[in-house]
């Protein structure tokens, strides 16, 4: 079909569409009465409309991929989010040992517990978390040890035996009662000690 023929047909259709349609006046009144009796539709706010009536569209596959990517970014960002005191939450275990600051000193902790199945070191350096610093039992002995870098200063610590029993170090000075009914020990770390 050529353009001139196309234009002719389009013009005919347009004329027909523009031609006024004669309707019954009574019928028009009935229709308008019905329309007026309907409640006005609730208008959404512009913010709501902006969020829930997007002016773009994506195929379901692309949308799903994009969503998965955003979730992934969120999880990674969350894992490295900082808490309010500036401490990084979700740090990998023994991260301090992997990045030993120049000022830190490597300190060895020893505890004798022949009957224990599991011993951990807790203290102000690991947030008193018994899962963070497990101690290692020497072969055929009741000696439990762990070595870790600590910054210079005064550190409070205790040993957790089999996950529930807290013990102070008998070979170190005691800290005063912590107010929770448990005894802790004190280790002073000097530079190069």
């Amino acid at each position, binding site marked *: 079909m050529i353009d001139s023929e196309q234009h002719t047909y389009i013009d005919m259709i347009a004329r027909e569409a523009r031609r006024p349609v004669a309707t019954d006046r009574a019928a028009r009144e009935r229709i308008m009465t019905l329309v007026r009796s309907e409640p006005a539709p609730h208008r959404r706010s512009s913010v709501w409309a902006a969020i*829930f*009536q*997007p002016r*773009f*569209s*994506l*195929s*379901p596959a692309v*949308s*799903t991929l*994009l*969503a*998965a*990517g*955003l*979730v992934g*970014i*969120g*999880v990674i*960002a*969350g*894992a490295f*989010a900082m*808490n*309010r*005191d500036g401490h990084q*939450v*979700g740090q990998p275990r023994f991260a301090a040992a992997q990045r030993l600051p120049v000022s830190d000193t490597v300190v060895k902790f020893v505890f004798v517990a022949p009957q224990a199945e599991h011993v951990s070191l*807790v203290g*102000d350096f690991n*947030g*008193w*978390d*018994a899962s963070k610093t497990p101690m290692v039992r020497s072969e055929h002995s009741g000696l439990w040890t762990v070595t870790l870098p600590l910054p*210079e*200063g*005064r550190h*409070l610590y205790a040993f957790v035996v089999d996950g529930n029993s*807290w013990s102070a170090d008998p070979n170190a*000075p*005691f*800290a*005063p*009662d*912590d*107010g*929770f009914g*448990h005894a*802790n020990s*004190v280790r*002073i770390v*000097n530079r190069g000690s």
Partner: protein
Amino acid sequence: MKRSSLRSLPLRAGALLCLAAVPAVAQETDPFNKLDPNNRFSIELMIDSARNAGLPSDALRSLALEGIALKIDGKRIVDRVRREFTLLRTARTTLGPVSDEEVKAAAAVLNSGAKPAQLAAFKTREQGRSDLQAFTIWADLITRGVPSEEASSAISKLWEDGADDAIFYGLWKSVQTDISQGLNPGAALQNRIRETPVRTPQSKGAPPEG
């Protein structure tokens, strides 16, 4: 619902999940979430106040974490953190501009039963001299049952005589051995303090740090 809205539904769901993921991961790893919101607020307020007052706020945070690890009642943790805040402030006021570690050690001495006036003897010291070891041994002796007055007097005297960390540690080792063998704590200290050597006061003219 429009076709375009249906298509972008996964995108919106993903965005919401993404927004939820950050706090969810942080919540999972922050032990303070184990506290009742009111107790948590009280503790965080004290930590912020300590930081603003130039006190070592990490001591308060550590104390709260210890309480949480021990599954102590939140109200009791708040009370203990409040008490520690007061001790830190008293220690700082008494000693003046010393290091945070010294303030924490001094707060422990006060917590063990020593009086602020007894702590004041440590306000002036030779440059570079640290009282961390002295404070640690002092608090330990009182905790082990040495009367507060006797422990305070002995440690202050050694400090004034110029005792170093090795002397304080040696005294502690001897006294705790005697106590573990059944000797009265006060008597053990009195016996050992007589044997404790002190440094000759050759550098007493050095300018004080505090």
